[in-house]
């Protein structure tokens, strides 16, 4: 295992040098063919899993949930009361999202979600987590210095705002509903969804300003 990656900040995300990459590539190929040969693994199942998480499930799902909550007060209430059912009604269910809770940012409270113990993340609405979410810096810092984490993301939240951090230590998964940006009155849900970033639904970002949607929203 490569243990020197902290000395090479320019490689910081992959954490692996090329020899390690190819070593892992060989190891995983060999593991896969062994498991198929032993009859434990159906390659067709792998294809479905990859297709699901690479192309179908992702933060665009969560963005639709948030845009709908911004647009329909009854849906917002349902989402706050029973997020599992409200989100399932839009077709987003399953693994790592069996028990959902949604928390809404307000001018008084900013929510942030972390899993300090591993990598728990609401897959049906956000897809697979980014590397930083699973990294030691985020997992260690979010609960003790969330304002420092926000600064790492270039986000400032005023000192008067309560920082509310949710550590996902059980099977409940949390979705942050960011504040709706000003200047979006009358926007369609599709237009609004284009402003809802993945990070804004984790709490390490904010929804984009309307100007950011120019050319982006259909």
């Amino acid at each position, binding site marked *: 295992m490569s243990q020197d990656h902290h000395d090479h900040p320019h490689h910081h*995300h992959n954490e692996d040098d090329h020899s390690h990459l190819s070593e892992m590539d060989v190891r*995983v190929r060999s593991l896969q063919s062994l498991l198929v040969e032993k009859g434990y693994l159906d390659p067709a199942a792998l294809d479905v899993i990859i297709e699901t998480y690479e192309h179908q499930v992702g933060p665009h799902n969560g963005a639709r949930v948030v845009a709908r909550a911004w647009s329909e007060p009854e849906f917002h209430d349902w989402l706050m009361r029973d997020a599992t059912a409200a989100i399932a009604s839009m077709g987003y269910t399953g693994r790592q999202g069996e028990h959902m809770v949604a928390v809404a940012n307000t001018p008084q409270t900013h929510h942030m979600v972390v899993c300090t*113990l*591993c990598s728990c993340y609401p897959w049906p609405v956000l897809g697979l987590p980014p*590397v930083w979410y699973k990294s030691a810096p985020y997992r260690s810092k979010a609960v003790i210095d969330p304002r420092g984490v926000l600064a790492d993301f270039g986000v400032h939240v005023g000192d008067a705002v309560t920082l*509310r951090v949710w550590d996902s230590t059980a099977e*409940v998964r949390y979705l942050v509903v960011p504040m709706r940006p000003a200047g979006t009155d009358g926007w369609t849900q599709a237009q609004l969804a284009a402003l809802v970033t993945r990070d804004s639904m984790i709490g390490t970002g904010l929804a984009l300003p309307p100007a950011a949607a120019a050319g982006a929203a259909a």
Partner: protein
Amino acid sequence: MNGVHDMGGMQGFGPVRPEVNEPLFHAPWERQALAMTVAMGACGQWNIDISRSARESLPPAQYLGSSYYAIWVTGLEKLMLQRGMVNATELQTGRADTPPLAGVRKLDGPQTASALARGSASTRDIDVPPRFAIGQRVRARQIHPTSHTRLPRYVRGHTGTIERIHGAHVFPDTRVSRPLPPFVDEAHWLYTVVFDGRDLWGSAASPGLLVSVDAWEPYLEAVEATP
């Protein structure tokens, strides 16, 4: 276990470094590692708590020095070795030299999409009422189990407030106690317990910080109301 996976409140790891336009996978093997880990999770020879336990009990330096998907691959190999599903030579060669272990379930391609969409609920019906009520003050127990637990170190011994009750969920600490099926399936009430940042980190805590964990009832004890 007081392992390095229990990172909340540790210092010195440096800034969080979000990657602009991060790809979903950083190498082809990560894609296969994700898919294999999910598919083998349905094999019936372990449960999610046992697989978490396998990852977090890796040697600390190895855990910290590995990318997350590398931890998953190592954890998967470890689980299969422990159960005799594969042996070390087979892992090295990628070729089977022993018959497969009997009774291993295989996730078939056609059933995969519905299995992913269904997931696996951790809630159970239990016939005892919750011991704690919303708004009640509770203390996270000062415990240091040597096996798997989901009570992070940074809240142990601290007092917080019950904010939500999530129903009864399968209890990870006992779910790992029998490594093979049938697994222990003991459920306890699960609560969101919120702590004041100053109680966890002292007076230098970030202003207005509140931190919650989801804690099963056995992790908590009642606190006498102070006048």
